[in-house]
């Protein structure tokens, strides 16, 4: 008998990779039909207008074609994707009521622990439904709402109806339409005027079922002069079939408000991550994005900021690390629609072991945005010569009062820098990883400590075995 060789197919990501037996209560048929959508809608007890919205979105989905730019999506076969997987668990506010295997998963990911030490509220989604939600009592008293989208749809129907997919309409692109048709789960946050949520809220999205899709919808409204830091985490164990994530995030930052939206994304390497995130910012408002993309097989993710009110600001900080078998197409876009709006985009991309990292951005300054200011800085690091790193920014500027600057660099770790560190007694491997960690430091320092540690761990995991 031929000796079977052991191939290390993927990096060690044990923590994220432990999969549970699929004990789902209900799964829709794979594929996308009107019947499936009616079925999901009925099970979720949607109001009538939501069913109509879903069906309309399906229509749009069928009319739109795949984008003729960006990564190849031909591997994705919608007929094989199960769009709705209902876990055998009810939404609860107590971890004790969450089924053991699901709770264990979130324990391993450190969610209940973080909830105790550093979060003001937590949402946890498992496959298609949110299984846990909590928020500190004093925030409730101040009128802050933090709950799952299904609950919000019933308890705050008017607010949801006024905002749901208004920023990202289904016709925006094919996967936005798909999202409109099959969305399930996600978080709803409402921060009333003048309220400052000092400690972050976090929602964690875990996709356990093989061959499934996750389509959570996150809707955040930060009213006038209020502030919030929201953290989004996501992961999934690895399967040999394609999983799909087509979430949608809509952020409404009103006049004078401030929202920080942080994401550490670590999907498994069989995930197609086609996510849409968009924020609209009112007068004197600020949106801050902190975005770390480490996982997934293919990603297309470009958080968009619409600076609608005078003096609105956007800060975008992103890091993308593409390794073997990954094609991560990430970036940002900013639309300046009002005078004196400003934006800062700073990104770092790393590629290695045949991975492909693309930075893609759009900066649009309309005629209505005199004195707009935007500066983009993007740096790419390549760790070997079998990987790819591409940078494709576009600036589209109208009017004569805008001040726009863009800078990008591409290259590898300099031999001289390694020699310098080695001359201080630091080994070559450690020198390299120090330099890589230093390279992503501008992003790490924007994250709360424990998430910075997590990001550093992810970087270290990625670097293991490539050095030396």
């Amino acid at each position, binding site marked *: 008998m031929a000796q079977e060789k052991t191939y290390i197919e993927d990096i060690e990501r044990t923590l994220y990779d432990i999969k549970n037996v699929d004990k789902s209560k209900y799964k829709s048929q794979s594929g996308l039909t009107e019947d499936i959508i009616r079925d999901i809608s009925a099970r979720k007890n949607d109001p009538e207008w939501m069913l109509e919205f879903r069906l309309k979105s399906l229509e749009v989905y069928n009319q739109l074609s795949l984008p003729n730019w960006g990564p190849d999506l031909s591997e994705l076969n919608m007929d094989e994707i199960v769009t709705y997987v209902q876990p055998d668990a009810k939404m609860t506010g107590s971890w004790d009521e969450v089924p053991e295997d699901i709770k264990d998963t979130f324990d391993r990911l450190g969610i209940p622990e973080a909830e105790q030490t550093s979060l003001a509220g937590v949402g946890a989604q498992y496959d298609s439904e949110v299984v846990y939600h909590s928020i500190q009592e004093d925030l409730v008293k101040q009128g802050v709402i933090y709950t799952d989208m299904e609950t919000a749809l019933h308890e705050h129907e008017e607010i949801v109806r006024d905002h749901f997919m208004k920023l990202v309409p289904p016709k925006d692109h094919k996967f936005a339409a798909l999202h409109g048709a099959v969305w399930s789960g996600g978080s709803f946050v409402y921060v009333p005027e003048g309220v400052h949520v000092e400690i972050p809220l976090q929602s964690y999205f875990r996709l356990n079922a093989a061959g499934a899709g996750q389509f959570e919808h996150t809707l955040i409204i930060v009213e006038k002069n209020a502030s919030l830091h929201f953290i989004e985490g996501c992961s999934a164990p690895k399967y040999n079939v394609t999983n799909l994530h087509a979430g949608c995030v809509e952020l409404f930052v009103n006049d004078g408000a401030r929202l920080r939206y942080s994401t550490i994304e670590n999907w498994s390497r069989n995930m197609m991550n086609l996510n849409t995130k968009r924020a609209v910012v009112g007068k004197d408002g600020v949106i801050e994005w902190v975005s770390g993309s480490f996982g997934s097989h293919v990603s297309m993710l470009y958080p968009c900021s619409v600076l609608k009110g005078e003096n609105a600001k956007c800060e975008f900080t992103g890091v993308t690390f593409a390794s073997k078998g990954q094609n991560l197409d990430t970036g940002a876009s900013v639309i300046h629609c009002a005078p004196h709006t400003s934006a800062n985009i700073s990104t770092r991309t790393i590629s290695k072991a045949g991975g492909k990292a693309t930075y893609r951005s759009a900066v649009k300054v309309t005629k209505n945005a005199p004195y707009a200011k935007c500066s983009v800085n993007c740096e790419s690091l390549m760790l070997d010569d079998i990987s790819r790193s*591409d940078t494709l920014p576009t*600036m589209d*500027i109208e009017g004569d*009062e805008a001040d726009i600057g*863009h800078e990008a660099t591409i290259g*590898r770790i300099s031999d001289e820098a390694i020699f310098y560190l080695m001359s201080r007694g630091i080994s070559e491997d450690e020198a390299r990883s120090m330099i890589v960690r230093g390279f992503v430091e501008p992003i790490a320092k924007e994250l709360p400590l424990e998430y910075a540690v997590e990001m550093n761990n992810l970087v270290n995991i990625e670097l293991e075995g490539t050095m030396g």
Partner: protein
Amino acid sequence: MNKEIFSEIPMRTWNWLGVNEATVDKDLLVESQKLDIDIEADHHEKMVVEYRKESYGIVNISIGENASLKLTQLQLMPEERNHANEVNIVLEKKARLQLVAVETGAKSFASKVNIILKGDKSQADVSVLYFGDGDRSLDMNYVLDFQGRKTVGNLEVYGGLMGESQKIFRGTLDFKQGSKQAKGYEKENVVVLSKGVRNRSVPIMLSGEDDVVGNHAVSSGKINEDKLHYLMSRGLSPAEARKLVLEAAFNPVLELIEDEVLRQEIDSYIKERLENE
């Protein structure tokens, strides 16, 4: 009207930006003026190509080992005419190219320049000047393709836009796998003089090779107010001051034009258009 895709960027992006491809009238591409040039190894040449009435021109050049070429291409088409041109250049080992391109004429034009740094240690230095006023439309697509080892490519672009002019400048540095120790640099500086302008820039950097150094930078803004103020404090009118500042901005390209008469012609052509603002 019957349109045809004339040039495309090497990697597509969002369609709503309208920068993926340049289309031109089919009729424009019917009659071309074609020029094929071989610079033999170790030869050193200078050439000037001028477009004053041709609607479409193609220049194909190969530069042999250790050879060099200074190519000055001036597009000075009359205001009411449309125009398209393309330049394809292949550089062999240690070949050198200096390309000076002035894109100031025509009502609407599209140009594409494709430079292949094929041989090791070949080098291309490209300087571009564009100027748009009225309702002109300017469309440019420059690609530097790094293939050989230790190749060097520099792309410096200086532009001025006024009136209701529209411009797209795409500049690509494409480091192919194997282009070890290549160095590429791209810079575009645009001065915008009027509200009605639409200014699009697409600086692309593609790399399949880690052992390279690539940089690009774009800056777009209005004319430096401090400079204007300084000049006006010396008695210059606002219009005169603007002219002077813009002229200074174009100088890095203008001074590369060796023919005094041509340089004067371009200089006064731009000045005249600034007057009519």
